[in-house]
């Protein structure tokens, strides 16, 4: 089996998701795809599976051109994708989940399924309902499903992101067995160490391009990290603004002690007034869960949160807001804006509660909105423009403006510049620096490490739900953050600066 991708490109709304991808793989092989969020890994896999269609380029299987117009075409060619979140039918039994779509005799199918599972040395009751399975078991069911369909190319999209360590171990064993059977495996991961553990080949992706590919034996960890970094990265690292904060004189504005919740564990951080603490990591590292739990949107498991020395653990969102902590969510479309409301109303909506008893104080609201529209250079035709019609960058500025109207002491910004253009990005950075000058403590969550490098005074990196490293101002470099976030940082391996 040979699969060859030629000049595959894909665009979303003028943003290049995939830029001229070329790749050829002969089975048996196990190729690891590594790259930061938004590098285009999943998009590429979905194109191979026929879920998306490429704008340009060709897919060849065994030298033959194939038009992957829909998943059933890919399935017919022996390609099977195990998605990041398993997509079983929760209300069907394991057996039904595997056998659906086949019209063979039930008994025959049953025998074949049992055979496959015996070969894999895997034991599970076939009459269990899928919604009683653990994530690992669901993934195994997905894999058996692929094997029953005689898959020659098995795509695993971040299979380990929600598995425990023992589960990962047995999954790797399974992959070794599949490799021996001659199946070609595409393996997407955030964890560089896994590549060296199980892959024969590797492809590093960044900004929709494959920046590095080949046999794993030809590369070291350092090579792979270089492939993950943007080419101009080195130069930026050398410049640092020197406005040192004297930590010894300050009391932290925000502090957590042994704070644990769903998706993160034992987080100890402190943020000082007028400081920006960067929280770096890859998606799924538990950063957003940490923020939402602090903000009273999810249950605290253990530990404490202090705001200006006062214990605010487990308070409701409204109470946390009143105490002076505010959160700008990751996905503003989902949580942040009133899309069909006017810009003015959007800005002043957080101020409403302090505004008056019963009737709205429209005049005060208007003044407030005007001030922020001017200060933040939000491009609008007027206060009455509908929020949903603004560009992403201007929406984001309006959301931050709303947060500021509550005069917070601590602000948590979650991916503040995701999906907005360069100009608006600079404006947002200016606003964040302005916050800092006003003495607000800022917690900056971002997967864009250049952003973290540019803005942060100190950085913590989160990896699999825990803080794995802390960096002071001098140590904040793209290399360090990338290595730590991908779980391969070694102290002293990367010297500071050049």
């Amino acid at each position, binding site marked *: 089996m040979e699969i060859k991708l030629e000049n595959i490109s894909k665009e979303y709304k003028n943003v290049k998701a995939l830029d001229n991808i070329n790749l050829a793989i002969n089975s048996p092989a196990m190729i690891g795809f590594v790259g930061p969020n938004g590098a285009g890994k999943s998009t590429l896999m979905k194109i191979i599976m026929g879920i998306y269609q490429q704008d340009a380029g060709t897919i060849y299987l065994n030298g033959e051109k194939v038009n992957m117009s829909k998943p059933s075409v890919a*399935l017919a060619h022996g390609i099977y994708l195990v998605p990041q979140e398993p997509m079983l*039918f929760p*209300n*069907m039994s394991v057996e039904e989940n595997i056998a659906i*779509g086949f*019209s063979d005799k039930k008994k025959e199918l049953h025998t074949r399924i049992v055979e496959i599972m015996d070969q894999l040395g895997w034991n599970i009751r076939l009459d269990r309902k899928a919604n009683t399975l*653990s994530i690992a078991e669901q993934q195994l069911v997905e894999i058996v499903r692929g094997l029953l369909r005689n898959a020659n190319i098995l795509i695993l999209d971040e299979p380990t992101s929600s598995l425990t360590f023992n589960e990962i171990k047995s999954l790797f064993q399974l992959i070794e067995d599949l490799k021996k059977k001659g199946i070609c495996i595409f393996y997407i991961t955030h964890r560089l160490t896994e590549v060296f553990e199980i892959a024969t080949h590797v492809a590093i992706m960044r900004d929709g391009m494959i920046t590095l590919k080949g046999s794993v034996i030809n590369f070291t960890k350092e090579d792979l990290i270089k492939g993950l970094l943007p080419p101009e990265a080195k130069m930026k690292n050398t410049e640092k603004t020197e406005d040192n904060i004297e930590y010894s004189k300050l009391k932290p504005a925000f502090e957590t002690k042994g704070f644990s919740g769903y998706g993160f564990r034992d987080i100890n951080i402190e943020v000082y007034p007028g400081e920006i603490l960067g929280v770096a990591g890859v998606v799924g590292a538990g950063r957003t869960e940490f923020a939402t739990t602090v903000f009273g949107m999810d249950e605290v498991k253990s530990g404490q949160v202090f705001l200006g020395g006062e214990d605010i653990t487990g308070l409701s969102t409204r109470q946390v807001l009143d105490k002076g902590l505010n959160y700008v969510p990751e996905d503003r479309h989902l949580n942040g804006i009133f899309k069909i409301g006017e810009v003015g109303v959007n800005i002043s909506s957080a101020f409403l509660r302090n505004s008056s008893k019963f009737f709205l104080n429209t005049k005060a609201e208007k003044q407030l909105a005007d001030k922020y529209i001017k200060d933040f250079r939000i491009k609008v035709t007027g206060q009455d423009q509908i929020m949903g019609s603004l560009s992403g960058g201007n929406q984001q500025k309006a959301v931050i403006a709303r947060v500021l109207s509550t005069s917070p002491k601590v602000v948590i910004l979650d991916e503040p510049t995701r999906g907005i253009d360069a100009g608006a990005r600079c404006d947002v950075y200016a606003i964040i620096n302005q916050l800092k000058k006003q003495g607000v403590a800022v917690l900056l969550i971002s997967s864009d490490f250049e952003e973290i490098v540019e803005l942060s005074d100190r950085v913590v990196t989160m990896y699999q*739900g825990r803080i794995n490293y802390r960096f*002071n101002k001098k140590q904040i470099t793209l290399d360090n953050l990338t290595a730590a976030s991908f779980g391969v940082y070694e*102290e002293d391996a990367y010297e500071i600066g050049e």
Partner: protein
Amino acid sequence: MKLVNRILKAREISSLAFLVAMFLIVGAVNPTFLQVKNLFLTFNGSVVYILLAVGIAFVILCGEIDVSIGATLGLSAAVSATLLRDGSSWLAAIIAAIAVGVTIGLINGIGVTVFKVPSIIMTLGVNGVVRGSIYVYTNGKWVENVPFEFKALSQATFMNALTYFLLGTIILTVVVHFILTKTKKGRYFAAVGDNMSGATLIGIPVEGTKIVAYIACGIFAALAGLMYVSRVGFVTPTAGNGYEMKAIAACVLGGISLAGGVGTVIGAAIGSVIMSSISRVLVFLQFSSDYDNTITGILLILIVVADSLIQRRLAEKARRKRLSARTLEEVGGGSNE
């Protein structure tokens, strides 16, 4: 033993228990309700609802809804009754009714899948259009004088107990149950409602399956319309008005989840018997049958709320379990501060 276990676990069992309990309670208050003759009357009276519920079950299993079935019943009843009155053959009337059902189902299906109109809005709009066309078609008048032979059909009984209509409906329900649970394509309906993206991923034609579901729903509503003509003997422009709520409630009561993917048509049929007996039950308990719709509505809401609360609990539990699995048990790296 295994079989007993499986039967006890089935969702339909609780609705059957509900039915039996309801009958026993009413029988305790008014023993005449449990007389064999009355029981048969009750069962025979539920054919129209059973057909509607089995039809809409296709759509609900897919995770969609159809609120136009009452109007579909009305239009197919009006069209077939008119043909019969004017001397057409039974076959012509049956074909015409089914054609009405197929057409409406196809329109609903295309609107929901191709044009991506939310199903509640699409079918609500179609409901208005179809109900309106009944008025246009009949000039707002009743369709009467349906031939006696056709009306007699609904009275014919098998061994003096079950009407042939009920018998046929039961057989049809069992056949549909077999198709939905035991055949490859039949499983597609529940699969689409259970996990739509998952269905796409393994090559199930999601849109095609939904269109077929709407057409099946339309055909069953048309069959219900034919039985309505035979049983009632005349058709008013409001025929079938509000039946969609009864059919949806019957499905939900029978264990079909409005979220899609869960439930059987056997359950829907049991739910229909409960729904159609409520008005008789009220009479036997010496309440006004005016409460019928109110009680149906309350039952519908209660069951759906309870079900969604349970589902939300389960989903939240699963999310937390997933997040916890991601977290390192031990501290992975050191600190270099």
